[in-house]
């Protein structure tokens, strides 16, 4: 990416990011795929790195948004870091040792923050892990409802959802889901069946209160009585609506990247399969996606898809994997994924390094690769322990 474009929201390429000493991460060298997956233990730096990618992409838009809501760091980078990453997080970035390069060019935060004449458009949509907090009271909270020390990412995402519902960017009949014309029927059906069980998600503006409800055969259930998975998924779905415009457009012009933290949160495996279809749809629309995950199912999918590509197996096995019937849309989707899209996977290890485990090769002597960065390590242990017990005659 040309340096002058960093943070401007211009169409960015950003193929590679290298860094040393940022928060828990000592060293990382990441080349992005069309879909890039981060796995690793809690507090291993995944979220920090994802927020950094957002900052690199959209610094101009971020500073403008903060100022618009009355935040002023008065030229102090440390205070900006506190506003952006959250209170107390300013220490993750030590100007003396933190080094970041994007496509072999240095990223200098001070310079980016003070640069004049930047474009302010946003090119990356980040859906944060704390998304359920945005609908805490059944309606998206405003940017300024959050504490000053809350991360920018959650405030901004929440504000976007608020604008989405306040500005009636959802159709006038106030149905958030399902909306004909918003997602392809294959995707709508997968979500409707596995996550909402046929119920509708609606905006209830009756009387003085505004709230999002789940409509089950006329009964309207408030947010707090939904299942955990539904509560997690609705803000994610609303975030996706920004990326999947109605009216036939494949993607929103200014947006090129999507980051979703732990998209599987709260979802049952069948619902995770529906989520995978959504991710593939986003890829087909031309977005580059980065996700962090603790789901072995997602990694299994990535591994299997890579093998299907290698084996030149065609679209049918991929559709079967996704429980999707062969329709013109689904066949085209599978074909695009298998022929054009490439996946990368990185493991954030306990030794503070970020390791490329993209092959996910079960024969790799490194267990981080063979066991999906630890996500299937317990299953492997089960096999080993039971086999050993059988051999010893304990079973």
């Amino acid at each position, binding site marked *: 990416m040309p340096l002058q474009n960093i943070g401007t929201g211009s169409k960015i390429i950003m193929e590679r990011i290298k860094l040393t000493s940022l928060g828990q991460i000592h060293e990382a060298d990441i080349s992005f795929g069309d879909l890039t997956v981060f796995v690793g233990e809690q507090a291993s730096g995944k979220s920090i790195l994802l927020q950094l990618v957002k900052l690199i992409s959209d610094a101009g838009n971020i500073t403008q948004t903060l100022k618009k809501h009355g935040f002023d760091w008065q030229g102090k980078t440390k205070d900006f870091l506190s506003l952006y990453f959250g209170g107390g997080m300013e220490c993750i970035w030590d100007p003396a040792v933190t080094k970041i390069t994007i496509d072999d060019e240095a990223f200098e935060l001070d310079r980016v923050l003070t640069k004049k004449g930047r474009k302010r458009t946003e090119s990356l949509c980040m859906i944060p892990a704390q998304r359920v907090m945005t609908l805490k009271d059944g309606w998206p909270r405003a940017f300024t409802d959050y504490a000053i020390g809350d991360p920018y990412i959650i405030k901004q995402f929440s504000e976007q959802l608020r604008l989405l519902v306040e500005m009636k960017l959802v159709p006038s009949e106030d149905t958030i889901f399902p909306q004909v014309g918003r997602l392809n029927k294959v995707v709508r059906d997968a979500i409707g069946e596995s996550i909402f069980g046929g119920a509708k998600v609606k905006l209830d503006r009756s009387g003085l209160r505004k709230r999002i409800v789940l409509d089950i055969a006329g009964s309207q259930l408030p947010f707090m009585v939904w299942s955990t998975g539904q509560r997690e998924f609705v803000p994610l779905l609303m975030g996706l609506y920004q990326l999947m415009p109605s009216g036939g457009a494949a993607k929103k012009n200014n947006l090129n990247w999507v980051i979703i933290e732990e998209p599987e949160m709260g979802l049952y495996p069948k619902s995770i399969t529906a989520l995978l279809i959504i991710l593939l749809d986003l890829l087909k629309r031309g977005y580059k996606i980065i996700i962090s995950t603790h789901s*072995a199912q997602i990694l*299994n999918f990535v*591994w299997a898809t890579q*093998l299907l590509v290698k084996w030149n197996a065609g679209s049918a096995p991929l559709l079967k994997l996704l429980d999707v019937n062969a329709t013109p849309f689904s066949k085209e989707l599978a074909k695009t994924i298998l022929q054009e899209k490439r996946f990368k996977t990185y493991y954030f290890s306990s030794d503070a390094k970020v390791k490329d485990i993209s092959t996910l*090769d*079960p*024969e790799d002597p490194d*267990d981080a690769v*063979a*066991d999906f960065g630890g996500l*299937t390590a317990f*299953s*492997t242990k*089960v*096999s*080993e322990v*039971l*086999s050993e017990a*059988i*051999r010893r005659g304990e079973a």
Partner: protein
Amino acid sequence: MNFADAVQGTPEIAECLKKGLQALGSNSNKVEVRVTRDLKGSVDIDSCLVKLYPNAPRWDYIFGYREQVYYVEVHQGRTGEIDNVIAKLGWLKRWRRRASENLEGLEDQSTYHWIASGRVDSEFAKDDKYRRKLLKNRILGPDSLLRVDTVP
């Protein structure tokens, strides 16, 4: 080319072609087919090639059923044996590439199966690296019984 012709056109094993599943001997009861008359013959590769390749990790059997070719290794069903079974498959494929253009040509109709000798005494988790290791090498199993008509 059909299975029997492919075997008979392979000098190193042509003489070892047996009817039905006879080549599998007592292990034939570990293979179940719905229509026995659709069996196209079988070869005990291990015994057939022992003199030519005494120290090689030889694969066990091959048989034909309808249009398909089934390569079968009867082996202890333990996670610790996975690398041995994969090594045998590696040997089989190298041998086939060199000795049997005919069988090589039937690769698209071929599947590879690990049948556990005795009971399946390994509890493979569905989601572990061992299971994936086998799948990566296109080996199905280990199973205590190969139900041929249900192979995908």
